[in-house]
Every structure is written in C-alpha cells, then in structure tokens.
C-alpha cells in the first residue's frame, strides 16, 4: 500500500500551485465571487498555455499524459483554490463523451478545441419538472429534414449565457421512458434559445434555458437516435473523482486561521480551547477521509476498474461531511461567523459563511445524496430495489 501521491503527483501539485499563484489573482477571485460565474476566458487560456488543460487527454488529441490519480491531485488544487474551472469541467466532460460515443467528424471538430480551451460547452440534462429523474425529460426534438427542432426547457444550465454549445438530452420518441431519448450538441448562439439567470444562495449564477423551435443539424446528434440514455451514462461515468475533500480543506484552513488569530476574553488565541480543537480535529479527519475516498476512486479508474460504488461513496461522504463541517465551524466562530464576505470584520473574508452557503448544493447536484445511497445499497451491497 502507498498513500503518497508520488513524485509525479508532487510535481503536478507544485506546478498547479505555481500557476494559481500567478493567474488566480485576488481581482479575478473577487470578480468570480461577485458575478457568481466560475468561468473566465483569460484564465482558461492561461491554463491552456501552461499545459494544464491538456492533462489526461490522449496524445493524438494534443493531450499530455496523466493518470486519473494525477488528475485528481490537479482537481484538488483547483477546487481548494476555487479556481474558475466549472466551464472547463463541463466542456471536457462532454468532449470525453464525444470521444467515446461521437463520430469522427464530431471528434475532429470538438475535441481539439476543448483541449485548447477554445469552446465552452454547457449541460442541458435536468428539467424544471424532473430533478434527479433525468430520464423523465420532456424537452422534445422533432426531425425536420436534416435538422431537428427543439422545444422545451432545461434547468440548472450553468454558463448557458456564455456557452457555445449545449449538450442536450431530448425526447425523440415515445417508445419507452429510457429508449425515447437522444443527445445533441446544440449551438447556443441562435434565437430559439434563451438563458434566464437563476441566482442561488451561494451567489453562483445558473440558468434556466428555454428552447422555442431551436434547431440543430443531424450531424450534431451524438450517438444513435434513441441512444441518448447510453451516451448520458458514458458521460457521467467518466466523472470518477467527484468530491469535496478539497473544499473541506479550504474551509478547515479558514477556521484554523480564525482560531489562531481570534482571541477570547482571556486574551489567548481560541485555538487553545479544547472545544475548538475537538471540532477542528474532527473536520480535519473527515477532510482526510474525503480525499482518501476520492483518490481511491481515481486510483481504481487508473487501473481500468469502474468505481461503481466507490465513486458514489466519495461524492456522498465528502458532500455530507462538508455540510456537517460548515454547520459546525459556523457555530464555532460564534456571532462573527454571520458576517458576509463584504463585511469588514468578516473572519477570514467570510469563508466559513460562504462554505455554509456553498455546501448546500453539493449534496444535490451530480446526483443527490439519496441517489448515491441508493446506488451504493444496490450495486455495492447487493440490496434489492
């Protein structure tokens, strides 16, 4: 057994940290925080120039070799720094799905641009009425000659207002719930598509998108007609190392920073309190467990094993642990925890307050905790449905 990230991992980590130090300026971080948009063209271009976007892609596509474990080390650093890479992650997720399920022309047009960070692809899966039950999608695509005409709406399409394409799950048949679905890569810049901002409790901006006779050429159908559920499965399958261990580290460091500097009535720093220590100790332990579960799933993927239950375990545990820790450390800080990012006296720039808000989405998106527990119960433990 070996719990280190190895020399290669250390080198990658150092590389990413150096990159972030240079490019994730206070001004950029502040802008992302203020706009709630976790994408920045210049930042992504810089990532490309630094060779970070190409990590893990096959060399034939301009990639730079990196195993899933290495990728998860990189992800941890980006996530801990709250780098604006959400757009990159959705773009690359779709590009990987196209690598597996697309045709040659689709691959040639999309993958190189995705690897270079030249396009932004957003996700159009869930709908206002279907939540976790993605296969209940009702947005409809109807064939019209060489094109498809799309009508309906999609919820939580983050970055839709700045994206180039929507990776859209649409209903093309009525035969059965799962077999009547098809996936398209729809150009976002057309009059039939409207993105309306949806603001969230963490300040992040997402969108509801409306499709009114939007059009996509059949050339941009990904996979077979009726094969959308499989394509979607491939796309989601590729997300091995989803987790929030790094977000916990970010939170922990904020609480530690507070504990070392804030002083109680006695004048001693709060970190000398046994109660404060207990709670920081618990958060540190659960952050460690989160990272271990994430890295294990990545290591399995590196060995060609699909982490069927282990991926959900990492996502489930780390998001629930983050939620618990945010509540607990928010309490720990006392009344000052209330101060928001913009309040002058906010401890550590209001990071604990922000973690509380941010944590709420983590147990929802990418499959709710309930969905993850169901997968673990059935596929990990073999329990009956």
């Amino acid at each position, binding site marked *: 057994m070996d719990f280190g990230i190895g020399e290669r991992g250390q080198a990658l980590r150092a590389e990413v940290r150096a990159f972030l130090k240079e490019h994730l300026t206070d001004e950029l971080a502040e802008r992302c925080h203020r706009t709630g948009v976790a994408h920045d063209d210049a930042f992504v271009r810089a990532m490309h120039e630094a060779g970070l976007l190409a990590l893990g892609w096959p060399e034939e596509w301009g990639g730079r070799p990196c195993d899933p474990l290495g990728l998860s080390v990189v992800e941890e650093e980006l996530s801990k720094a709250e780098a604006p890479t959400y757009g990159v992650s959705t773009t690359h997720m779709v590009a990987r799905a196209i690598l597996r399920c697309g045709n040659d022309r689709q691959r040639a047009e999309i993958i190189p641009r995705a690897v270079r960070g030249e396009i932004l692809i957003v996700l159009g899966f869930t709908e206002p009425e279907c939540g976790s039950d993605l296969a209940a999608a009702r947005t409809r695509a109807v064939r019209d000659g060489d094109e498809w005409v799309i009508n309906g709406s999609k919820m939580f399409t983050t970055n839709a207002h700045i994206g180039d394409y929507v990776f859209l799950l649409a209903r093309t048949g009525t035969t059965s719930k799962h077999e009547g679905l098809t996936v398209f890569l729809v150009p976002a810049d057309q009059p039939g598509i409207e993105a309306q901002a949806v603001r969230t409790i963490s300040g992040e901006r997402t969108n509801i998108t409306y499709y009114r006779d939007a059009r996509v050429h059949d050339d941009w159908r990904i996979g077979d007609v009726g094969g959308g559920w499989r394509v979607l499965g491939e796309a989601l399958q590729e997300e091995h190392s989803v987790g929030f261990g790094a977000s916990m580290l970010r939170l922990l460091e904020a609480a530690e920073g507070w504990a070392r500097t804030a002083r109680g009535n006695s004048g001693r720093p709060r970190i000398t309190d046994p109660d404060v220590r207990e709670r920081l100790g618990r958060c540190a332990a659960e952050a460690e467990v989160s990272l271990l579960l994430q890295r294990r799933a990545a290591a399995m993927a590196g060995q060609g094993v699909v982490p069927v239950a282990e991926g959900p375990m990492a996502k489930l545990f780390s998001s629930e642990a983050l939620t618990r820790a945010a509540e607990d450390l928010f309490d720990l800080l*006392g009344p000052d925890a209330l101060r928001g990012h913009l309040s002058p006296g906010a401890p550590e720039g209001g990071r604990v307050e922000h973690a509380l808000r941010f944590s709420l989405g983590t147990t929802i998106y990418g499959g709710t905790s309930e969905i993850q527990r169901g997968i673990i119960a059935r596929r990990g433990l073999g329990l009956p449905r």
Partner: protein
Amino acid sequence: MDVAPSDEQRRLVESFTALFGDASPPSRVRAAEPLGFDPALWETVRSAGIVAMAVGEADGGWGAEPLDLALVAEVQGRFLAPVPIVEAQVAARLLARLRTPRAASALAAALAGERTVTMAVHPSREGVARLVPAGAVADDVLVMDGGRLLLVPSGGDHGQVENLGAMPLADLRLGPDAEVLADGPGAEAAYETALDEFLLLTAAAQVGIAARAVEIGVGYVKQRRAFGVPIGSFQSIGHALADSATAVDGARLLTYEAAWAHGTEPGRFAELAAMAFAFATETAREATYRSLHFHGGYGFTDEYDIQLYYRRARAWAAVCLEPRAAYRRAADHRYSAVRTAAPMEEQWTSA
C-alpha cells in the same frame, strides 16, 4: 398540563397571523433584504402595541405574560417578519426592570413610538458593541460595558453589517454620549434576565421558522414527482420530515414551558430558556436544511422561499449563542451551586 392556548391567546395569535399574512408575505421579506427591516411594517406593529404589550401596566404597558410574547414571536418566525419585535420588547422590559428616572424616560420614549430601543446581547469589547441585533435601525441601544449598563444613542452612523440572515445588525462604537443607566450586581442581574428573555423569545421564533419549514417541505414533496411517484412517498424523505415534525412539537412544548416557568416556577426559568433556545435552534436548523434539501436544486435558488428560512434559522440564533454554548448555559443554571472550572470563551456563563 394543558398545552392549549387560552381563548385570549388564540385571538392574539390569530390577529398577528392575519397582520403578518397581509404585511409580511415572502415578497416583502425579500424586498426588505439586505437590511432586513420594513419601516412600514414596524410602524404598523408598533401602533398595534407590540412594545407596550411587553411591559407591565404600572410602567405604562399592557402587562402581557412572557407566554403571550412567545406566541407572537412564533408567529413572527413563521412569517420571518423583518421588524425588531423581540429586540424592542426585551429592551423595554430591561428598562422597566431598572427603575431609575433615566430608564423610565427612555422607556416612555420607546412606548410612545418616538425611539426604537434595542440591546446588545454581548458585552462590549474595546469600546465597541458588536453585532447588535436591530442595531442598524434602532435609535438607542442598551449595552453592558464593564459592569455598567449604558444607554447608547446610535446616532446617524449605523455601521451596518452585511450578514447571512439579512438582519439589521450593526457594530456600535460607544461614543461620549453614552449614558450610564445602572451598574453593579443589580445591573448585571437585570441584564442577565434580559438575556434569558432574549433566548426565550428567539426560541419561540425558531419554533415558528421550523414549523413553517416543515410545512413548506411537506407541501413540496406531496406535489413534486420523480420516478413516477410523489417524492414524499420515499422513506428517505418522509421519515426525515417525521423526525423534524416531532422535534418541532417538542421544541414548542419546551419553549412554552420555559415561558410558563417565568411566572410559575421562576427558579427554573433561566435553565429552561437556555434549553429551549438550544433545542429549538437545532430543530430549526435541521428542519430548514431538510426542507431545502428535499427541494432538490430548487432549494438553493433564491426564487424559493425555503432559503429565506434556512438563512434566518441560523442567523437569528448565531447572533446570541451556538447550541453547545446554550446547553452549557442551561447546565450553569441547573448546577448553579457548582462553579465551572474553566469557563469557555465567548460563552454567556452565569456561574
């Protein structure tokens, strides 16, 4: 044992339910953000006697019981009414308790609606009363400063603090115009009782928040469908809401018991108020989290009301004490004969 409100209490609840139902719908609560104060509503409830009810007839008030105040606070919590009722009531009661001419005149101004008076729930440090509830909208603030109870005019500069719960909080610098209202053990005792009352009424507000959060969650999961069924039919949802509904009932009973003890078993009041605060806070926190979570992605969008409840459940409590500290405070009263060895920092210790 009789847990039913009297007819008079029922009318009180009905009238404030009607008042806030009209004047504090979620749209108004949102519109009052980020300051968290609705001047028109404050004028309305003040005219309705919200401050006067809190003090005795001898002091110019109506002499309502703490139980009545708790009932109103629960209704306020249900509607998240953005007005400093608890703050003004507790401050008025504190002024009445002091029995000095200056306190009496400050109270008279509060009762007349000339000045909004609030109190700092933590002693000042280094000349600043921090995170004063309603400090950003009050005219006068009662502050405990090194054993002296001060009346501090807030002046024009309110030093408002942006915060999670959209509360009108302010950091208040104690200026030269601060007046000493009282000092010594009598001042400390009066202030401690005010803190107990603040905890009690905040507990009641948390009960209202929690109860409404459960209702919102139940309404949503009955109507929302996934996998061909209403999601409220899933045990993972139904059982969690059942636990929260149970905790809400328990928190309500405990809060009203504490309010009842104020007059009937005064020796238990401070202990029960701290317990009620801790338990109601935990209950509201869990109920709002669950209800928000069961909304799926909608829960954390600004559009849905549940996030308003989620944020206030935490903020209205955090401005006072976290639950662990409140349980310690309850124990301090319960075991008052035994002094603590090492008082925790930032805790209201009574020992």
